[in-house]
């Protein structure tokens, strides 16, 4: 593939009739990589993610998936876009009586004809997606009766059932306990390293996990983006600055570079 899976140029994202949220002159998401978007609250991580997903048109600039524009002239149709990219969002999902396997099957919508019923190949993709995230044993459970961790894995299985090149996740670890947070990032890392998806992009507040598992970081703060490897962005202090610019929460903490946690400055940096 000659083109980057996601390529953003001269992007401006505005509030409707308001100030600019985010500008990005150039941002490329690499293939074969787990990329984390990190930055302070209100920095625009979710906005950027939605824009890449085709859910939020930019006020100017372009977003391309493998060289094909997401918005504007010659843009991907919804259906074609859905075959390239899928999402796991923070939206509350309504259907309490939907069974896990039926929810995962909704990932096949972009491949179905209007009448479309489920054939053997479709069934295989759905089962395979559930195996990837370890939810096969939950197949007949109602979605309303899943734990937060189970539901998150089911939503990832649904996204995988779209057979995407790119999977975007918004705060996927938000409601999980620490071991499940780690397991989730492990899962995402494996999806990329085994080539099940070309790229995974995660917006997250779990800096320590982002530092540990990501191949690449995108710092989203102060209305702009900076990319680099986790090590480089920590070493040159960009990481710390991205979070602490305009910090208004009392005594300013510092980034513990080995652990990836913000700690009180009195403890000192190790």
């Amino acid at each position: 593939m000659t083109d980057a899976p996601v390529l953003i140029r001269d992007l401006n994202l505005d509030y409707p009739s308001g100030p600019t949220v985010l500008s990005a002159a150039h941002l490329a998401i690499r293939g074969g990589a787990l990329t984390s978007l990190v930055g302070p609250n209100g920095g625009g991580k979710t906005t950027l993610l939605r824009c890449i997903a085709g859910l939020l048109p930019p006020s100017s600039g372009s977003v391309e998936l493998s060289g094909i524009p997401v918005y504007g002239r010659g843009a991907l149709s919804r259906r074609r876009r859905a075959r390239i990219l899928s999402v796991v969002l923070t939206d509350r999902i309504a259907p309490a009586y939907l069974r896990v396997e039926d929810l995962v099957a909704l990932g096949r919508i972009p491949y179905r004809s209007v009448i479309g019923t489920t054939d053997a190949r479709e069934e295989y993709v759905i089962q395979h997606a559930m195996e990837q995230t370890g939810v096969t044993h939950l197949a007949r459970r109602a979605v309303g009766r899943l734990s937060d961790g189970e539901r998150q894995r089911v939503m990832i299985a649904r996204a995988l059932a779209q057979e995407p090149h790119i999977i975007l996740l918004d705060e996927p670890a938000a409601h999980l306990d620490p071991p499940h947070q780690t397991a989730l990032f492990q899962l995402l890392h494996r999806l990329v390293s085994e080539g099940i998806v070309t790229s995974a992009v995660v917006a997250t507040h779990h800096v320590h996990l982002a530092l540990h598992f990501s191949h690449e970081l995108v710092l989203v703060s102060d209305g702009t983006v900076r990319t680099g490897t986790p090590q480089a962005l920590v070493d040159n202090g960009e990481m710390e600055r991205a979070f602490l610019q305009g910090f208004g929460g009392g005594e300013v903490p510092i980034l513990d570079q080995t652990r990836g946690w913000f700690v009180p400055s009195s403890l000192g940096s190790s």
Partner: protein
Amino acid sequence: MSRTDRGTSPIAGILAAVAALLVTALLALAMGSVPIAFRDMLTAVGIGPEREISGAASYIIRLVRLPRVVTAAGAGAALGLAGLTMQTVFRNALAGPGVLGVSAGAGLGVAIVLLTGVGASAAVATVPAAMVGAALVLVAAIAVNRAVGHPVLLLVMGLLFGYAANAATTLLLASAPGQGLERYIVWSFGSFALPPGPGPILLPMAAGLTAVGLAVAGPRVDALLLGPYYAESSGVHARRTQAILIVVAGGLTGLVTAYTGPISFLGVAVPHIARGWIGRSQHRLLVPATAIIGGWLAIAADLVARLPGNERVLPLNAVMALVGVPVVLVILLRGRRSGDGEGIGL
């Protein structure tokens, strides 16, 4: 354990509901203020053996009870589907056919005709009046949807339309002459006994077409349950799908209300009963279940409303709620006890 986990076939649940619908329909044909033998009834509707029956019995069955039962089935199915559609579009368990204010608009149309004397002479003027009222509110709702494109705002606007239409109706009622007042109140009770006309055919046809359309679009409609962003990202044009569903549900509600008067309760409750009964949320299963259970409950409520031995016909709306509320309570509480969460999911 719910049906969802037990793996009980939802198809079996739907077939059981069909059986209940048919049995109740036959009972409703046989029972009434004039006693008619069951086998005479079967002959009159053409499913019994060929034999001589009295002209009066034949007339009552074919021209009074059959249209009434068919109307009830069609209206119940249509309102159930309208409620289901609204709950899906708004992702809200409390949404129902009334949320757009369409039935309130129909009520205002009827009130204007009956209370200002515009249609005092014409017996069937309520149907076109209600249709015009419902259509105006629906057009306003579509315009709002186009302008703001946000379902929750549409919900609030629908409530406001409803309040405004009800307020205007109340003003008319307060200054109305006695005769028109009585006719309006009788209309607002709701009834499946229609004046002669295409109503009994129209309602089941509208419900049937809607059911087929919703079932064909099934998975796309399912995707809306995950919210517009998930729907869009899986290739569904969320806003367009929502708009189509709103028009369909509003149209069905307006049509039913025009013929039968405002039928409360059914539209909100039936989708929940259907979900509890078959234990699924997929529209391909939920749509037939909702239509059948809606038709069945409407026939049953109408049967209770005109129980034999009772000279007067009870107000349908009152019977509907009195019969329906315990049913829904049982289903919801049973769901709670068996640990299916709060029991009012979608």
